């Protein structure tokens, strides 16, 4: 219920990852920085097409690019992936709060049962 992560950012990250070429580009970048020509090599794609994929990854914050004009290497930035790996983690505080309430309710229930001498079994 309490979404602490940036949902727009997460949506963008998933959209960027929902493409096999872009995932392959990221996989290549886990081995180190590379420029557009290097990245285009394994694919039967034109440089503009690869550049387009790189721009999507850049917007999603998954890669950053160096600023040297001719050679702008792409560098993987894994920070947004950290958020993905925690989608289930956002439920942890919700469950923890529920467990607290269950414990309180149990205490109350058992006290009542003792007072009235009732036994369910």
């Amino acid at each position, binding site marked *: *219920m309490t979404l602490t992560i940036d949902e727009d950012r997460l949506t963008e990250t*998933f959209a960027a*990852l929902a493409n096999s070429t872009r*995932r392959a580009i990221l996989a290549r970048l886990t081995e180190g920085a590379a420029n557009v020509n290097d990245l285009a090599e394994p694919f039967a794609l034109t440089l503009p097409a690869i550049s387009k994929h790189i721009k999507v990854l850049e917007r999603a914050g998954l890669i950053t690019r160096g600023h040297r004009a001719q050679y702008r290497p792409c560098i993987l930035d894994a920070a947004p992936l950290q958020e993905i790996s925690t989608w289930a983690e956002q439920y942890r505080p919700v469950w923890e709060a529920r467990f607290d309430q269950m414990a309180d309710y149990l205490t109350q229930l058992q006290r009542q049962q003792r007072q009235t001498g009732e036994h369910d079994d």
Partner: protein
Amino acid sequence: MTDENAAQDAVVIERDFDAPADLIWRMWTDPEHFKAWYGPDGATVPVAEMDVRVGGTRLVCMEVHTPNGPAQMWFTGQYREVVPRQRLVFTESLSDQNGTPKSPADAGLPEGHPATTEVTIELEDLGDRTKMRLTHAGVPAGSPGAAGWAMALDKLAACVKAQGI
């Protein structure tokens, strides 16, 4: 399949309660008890319908009070495993009040959020006390791309570690 489990994100929480397993079991399966504790942060649970048997359905409504008045969220699901006082497994999806599931996008959840999640409750009888273990996991959609997706994420997870984030 360990690969699948690794790719499937889950939250696991364990806690001991000062109550016998039978009572903890009823916390989950008796609507009156369930309504009393389930709503976190001031949320109430006006509806809890539970047909607690394998294949039986559940429908739960949570109501929260917002500045614009009460807001309701409905959840539906099916019981997958029912072993009294030991193990309860059910699925959960956002739905409308008739129990018709909504897509995560319609419900305003991020694209990567699974449409269906699965909750597993395991109880260990410790006499007067009970150890309760809850696992809340995403149910893989089973799309053909799922394997490639998992591989990519595994590789990238390794990279996250390497970068020390």
